[in-house]
């Protein structure tokens, strides 16, 4: 018998006194961890298949289940962690590229947590958002540098197209295929009710969701899946995906096995064929080439929709963003290295890219230095976890944020980071009909609406505390921020002073 070089990550703990052997856990677990043995009348758990998604714990009517970290440990070693050792064992066994999901889980600094917000005291008094109007509406797109007049002296109100958002939060690009139809429906309906936008990702737009078009950003990636006239016409904006924070420099690859009937129709490719979106757009090797695609999309949509260019936050992000701002794009979306994904090579996810906080600060500063900040709006993504992160992002220079992981959490995701298996017990990152139906879009969309409403209210509270009544007045207002426990270089990049200064 082969040796088990590595042990299960988790241990299923069942309180036998509480368990009533209702077998709900067995029916719910797509990983087949739980089963009932009729012969001995016992519930049996196979811990090694467990991904700690917490579905069984949530469903157990008597609270009999707990998932704990496996107390078994390899000999402690500050250099060779159990995780790294296990990865070596796995690769020695299979010869495969390690594949993971969701955002970078490593212990890199989270700069949001090292930035503190200001509040007014005595002078410039705080504003009570319950009593006074607070403005969180934003318009994304080009902002004219100066007022133009018509020949008769009236003001020229012919402005470039913008995206109007009731609050500076949007749902990140997640394709139909990477997440379920019910998840997409929840996002689309929530975006519509909230007056914000969700993003199709690169998997096309399901025919049932065209009605949510005014609150939809349609994505165009290198594979151009599902991109055609109606699709471009349907969206409120078009996003060119150049890169993704979870896997900068890596393309997308949805294996043929996942291209089922409905996904095939939406992506407009035959069932069972691989959907390959290579890392580069092979027609774009320069900013000039990018400009060509930006303007071909503007031509195709009659210059009525803003064009977004999405990139991953990488080392030269400021220079790249400057190029994008000059390419004619209306909005730049920057995705930090903690951004989620349905599947990414582990080594890429964990080692490539830079934190969004630093990328944002340097891009905003660069565009200001070059006098082109008004040419584009900046949307950031890559782990915005709370309304406080949103406020800090805006103060660092963002016009709006994308939330992906937080939105999935609202839908029930427990961050087990096993999306790539396609067996999501919460009905989100799966296409299995029996699992998809667990996510009720009727409930899902309301939870998303609740989340964004709550954040919007908190944003107003924080702005009010600073004596600011409009998100426009917060944008790039770095005086509202102070660093805590940061080095001089970090403070310099962030463009903020240290707490106490």
């Amino acid at each position, binding site marked *: 018998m082969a040796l088990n070089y590595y042990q299960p990550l988790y241990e299923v703990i069942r309180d036998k006194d509480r368990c009533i052997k209702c077998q709900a856990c067995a029916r719910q677990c797509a990983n087949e961890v739980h089963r009932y043995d009729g012969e001995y009348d016992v519930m049996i758990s196979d811990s090694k298949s467990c991904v700690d998604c917490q579905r069984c714990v949530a469903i157990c009517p008597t609270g009999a289940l707990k998932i704990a970290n496996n107390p078994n440990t390899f000999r402690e070693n500050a250099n060779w962690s159990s995780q790294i050792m296990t990865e070596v064992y796995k690769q020695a066994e299979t010869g*495969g590229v*390690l594949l993971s999901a969701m955002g970078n889980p490593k212990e890199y600094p989270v700069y949001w947590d090292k930035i503190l917000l200001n509040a007014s005291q005595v002078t410039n008094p705080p504003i009570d958002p319950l009593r006074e109007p607070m403005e969180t509406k934003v318009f994304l797109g080009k902002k004219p540098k100066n007022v133009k007049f018509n020949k008769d002296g009236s003001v020229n109100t012919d402005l470039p197209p913008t995206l109007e958002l009731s609050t500076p939060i949007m749902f990140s690009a997640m394709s139909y295929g990477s997440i379920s139809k019910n998840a997409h429906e929840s996002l689309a309906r929530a975006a519509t009710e909230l007056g914000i936008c969700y993003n199709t990702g690169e998997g096309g737009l399901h025919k049932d969701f065209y009605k949510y078009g005014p609150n939809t950003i349609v994505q165009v990636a290198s*594979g151009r899946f599902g991109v055609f006239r109606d699709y471009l016409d349907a969206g409120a904006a078009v996003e060119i995906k150049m890169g993704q924070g979870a896997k900068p420099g890596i393309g997308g690859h949805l294996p043929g096995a996942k291209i089922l009937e409905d996904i095939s129709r939406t992506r407009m490719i035959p069932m069972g*064929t691989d959907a390959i979106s290579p890392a580069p757009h092979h*027609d774009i090797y320069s900013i000039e080439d990018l400009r060509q695609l930006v303007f071909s999309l503007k031509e195709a949509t009659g210059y009525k929709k803003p064009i977004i260019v999405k990139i991953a936050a990488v080392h030269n992000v400021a220079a790249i963003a400057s190029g994008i701002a000059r390419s004619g794009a209306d909005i730049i979306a920057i995705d930090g290295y903690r951004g989620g994904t349905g599947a990414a090579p582990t080594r890429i996810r964990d080692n490539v890219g830079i934190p969004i906080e630093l990328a944002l600060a340097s891009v905003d500063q660069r565009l200001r230095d070059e006098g082109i900040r008004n040419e584009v709006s900046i949307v950031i993504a890559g782990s915005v976890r709370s309304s406080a992160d949103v406020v800090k992002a805006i103060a660092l220079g963002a016009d709006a944020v994308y939330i992906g992981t937080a939105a999935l959490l609202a839908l029930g995701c427990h961050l087990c980071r096993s999306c790539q298996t396609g067996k999501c017990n919460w009905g989100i990152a799966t296409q299995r009909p029996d699992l998809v139906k667990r996510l009720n879009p009727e409930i899902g969309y309301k939870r998303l609406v609740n989340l964004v409403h709550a954040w919007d209210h908190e944003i107003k509270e924080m702005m009010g505390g600073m004596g600011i009544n409009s998100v426009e007045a917060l944008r790039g207002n770095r005086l509202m921020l102070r660093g805590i426990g940061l080095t001089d270089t970090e403070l310099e990049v962030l463009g903020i002073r240290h707490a106490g200064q």
Partner: protein
Amino acid sequence: MVINAEEVGYFDLNRKIIGCDDDEIKVENVMGQRYVGCGASGKKITVEGIPGNALGAYLDGSTITVYGNAQDAIGDTMNDGEIIVHGSCGDTTGYAMRSGKIYIKGNAGYRVGIHMKEYKELYPKIIIGGKVGDFLGEYQAGGIIVVLGIGCENDVPVGSFCGTGMHGGYIFIRSDQPPRGLPIQVCCETADDSDKELIKEYVEEFCANFGYNAKELLSSRFYKLTPNTASPYKQLYTENL
């Protein structure tokens, strides 16, 4: 309607073309203006001169005929229609096109038919009269590409890395020798008569457009390239939870 493109920038030119109610439009003196016929449907556009990049991008059922050469990215993400070029064209011809036809009388550049895909009744076709550059049919997922190699009978009419990443569709190359250095994901065999039936209609149409003898061309040797697996990129992944 006749539109004179002389000294008109692409923005104004395309507004004129889009704003024109006529189904048949002739555009004269075109000199590098981009995006001509971008997203057009139900039109018959004749271009005299040299249109710029992204001619007929997102084309959705129009016919564009160019009397002259064309540049890069013609028929980018085209959904339906026809583009006929009485000359040569540049790189990424038919990028991700999903249906319709592109006929090029002369040569074409790099990455012709890249990401070309098909879906049910949508089936894209590219027929090149002369030779093409490197990366023909890169990532091709469906549809058909024919390279006739007229005028380069003594050499293979395609460049290097032909069919790299190909995972669907067909490439037909009229040549006495197979392309060199094909990637492992591509099968190459001599086309027999039943294979040639697949391209007969398009070769005949090509010849009708440009005045060649279809019978003569079809009687030559063709190589047929197909993907040898539906999953060229199926690396062995190891789940790392």
